[in-house]
């Protein structure tokens, strides 16, 4: 990593494949809150293509400033501290993409998301992927891959989980999984939707559409 002096809490983003997959889950004209919105690529897309009322929260000031300068309704803030101020049911959909593993209290963040939104869309890198398992078993050290690319002492990703772990949390807190999918490292939809066990082994990223039970 070129800059290890200022560890970024959340992974940097651009208009990635999973954002496109997320956008497909959002109906036209929806009110959306994107937590960890980066420079607002998803917000801009949803506003222009879906007529959405899309707003964002971004922890990184430079990215938040860029998003605001692009005319997007973005506030500098973070998932752990700012969601509590929104009223119940303020949004149709609340999005948290590739950020869950980096928040202080993922379970509480998820609870807040489904309090202020009717639906929650959550994407996260799957720590159950076979390559990570293999690296840990074969080398006895923390895995390093393209997705998990920072050494353990510098990673912002303090709460990694697997696809099966996430299913368990949803069951524990009574959330309904309306849709879910796993994608491989090319961002292509994986064909294992019938089997969480296989998806957990071969899916690099997971994407969940939840609603309150």
């Amino acid at each position, binding site marked *: 990593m070129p800059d290890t002096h200022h560890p970024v809490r959340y992974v940097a983003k651009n208009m990635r494949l999973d954002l496109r997959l997320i956008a497909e889950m959002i109906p036209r004209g929806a009110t959306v809150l994107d937590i960890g919105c980066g420079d607002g690529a998803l917000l801009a897309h949803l506003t222009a293509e879906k007529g959405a009322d899309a707003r964002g929260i971004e922890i990184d000031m430079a990215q938040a400033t860029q998003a605001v300068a692009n005319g997007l309704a973005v506030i500098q803030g973070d998932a752990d501290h*700012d969601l509590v101020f929104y009223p119940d049911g303020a949004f149709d959909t609340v999005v948290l993409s590739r950020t869950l593993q980096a928040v202080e209290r993922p379970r509480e963040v998820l609870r807040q998301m489904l309090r202020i939104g009717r639906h929650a869309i959550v994407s996260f890198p799957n720590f159950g992927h076979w390559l990570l398992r293999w690296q840990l078993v074969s080398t006895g050290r923390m895995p390093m891959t393209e997705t998990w690319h920072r050494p353990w002492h510098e990673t912002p990703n303090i709460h990694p989980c697997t696809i099966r772990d996430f299913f368990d949390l949803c069951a524990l807190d009574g959330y309904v999984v309306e849709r879910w999918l796993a994608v491989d490292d090319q961002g292509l939809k994986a064909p294992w939707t019938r089997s969480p066990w296989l998806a957990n082994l071969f899916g690099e990223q997971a994407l969940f559409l939840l609603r309150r039970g």
Partner: protein
Amino acid sequence: MSAHIAPFPQVDHQRAVFPEGLALDCGISIAPLAVAYRTYGRLNAAGSNAVLVCHALTGDQYVAETQPLTGKPGWWGTIIGPGKPLDTDRYFLICANVLGGCMGSTGPREEMTDAEGRGLGRPWGTDFPNITIRDMVRAQKRLVEHLGIERLLAVVGGSMGGMQALEWAATYPDAVYAAAPIATAPHHSAQNIAFHEVGRAAIHADPDWKGGRYWEEGRVPAQGLSVARMVAHITYLSEQALGRKFGRRLRGDTNPLGALTFLEDVFEVESYLRHQGSTFVRRFDANSYLTITRAMDYFDLAAEHGGDLSAAFRGTRTRFFVASFSSDWLFPTAESRAIVRALNAAAANVSFVEITSDKGHDAFLLDEPDFHRALGGFLAGCADRLGV
């Protein structure tokens, strides 16, 4: 300051006069109401491109042109003009002298009127009623209607101007498409009130103040008003900004070695403040200063709405741009964040950034490219949505 200073000359300001006057929050009505103002750019046929700029405590309506008394450039000329964030090619900009001000709007320096609106041949002075930020906004609303504008594209202001932007959005939500409260707070803090009180006490202590009737003798409480300005000016800067600008340097050639002689040494920062004070008294009225600082101190938007700040914005469709500056200790970021959180609680559309700057509260008036980019982008986004 030994010599007595005469009041600054009256200037012919552009004004709109409303004979019916204005009912104030304190229960008193004043008539007629005069609002001095300046405009820049052109109002489009639909009347949809008007942006009201609200000035701070000691600002005035000459926001983007030479101030007629001082000959200095407009106080926000950095962001107003063709191609600038407040683009005069695209927007119709309005800036009014606040109610209680001293640049042509109804205030302590203007002729006092009786209940029937008849002139009494003397200035209001300290008989000018207590006013609020909301009173200022009501006066601006009259002007905006007078100019044929039903809904403003935006209300933009920093510091006390930001209080007005918040008050506009709370009082006239349907008349404000967007509001940009900058470097401001939902209420004036105890610390801010305290600094204002030091300024007021300095004015009151000046023998030339004469219980507020200094105008009778054609002089002004220059020493007191100057000290008030000096104190306030410190609060507008940061320790870093003062350090960078002046450090511990001594003024001029008192000692070529730059070491203290313990005789006539004057630090540069002292002479700078004295200069700020002495130029201020040549363009600002002491009774206006007392009136407006009081209005700021009274400001508490939550209290106006049952103690719940978010109630001030309930159901609002106005889009908000909130900005603060990292080294501003007069209106710190925490206060902007309180505004943002109240707006979130009201499910309002809000953008918020804290601009990294070491220039203190004054940063909102200075060259801060990130701030200008964000404000300009926000306004342009609003204008695009309205088809301006």
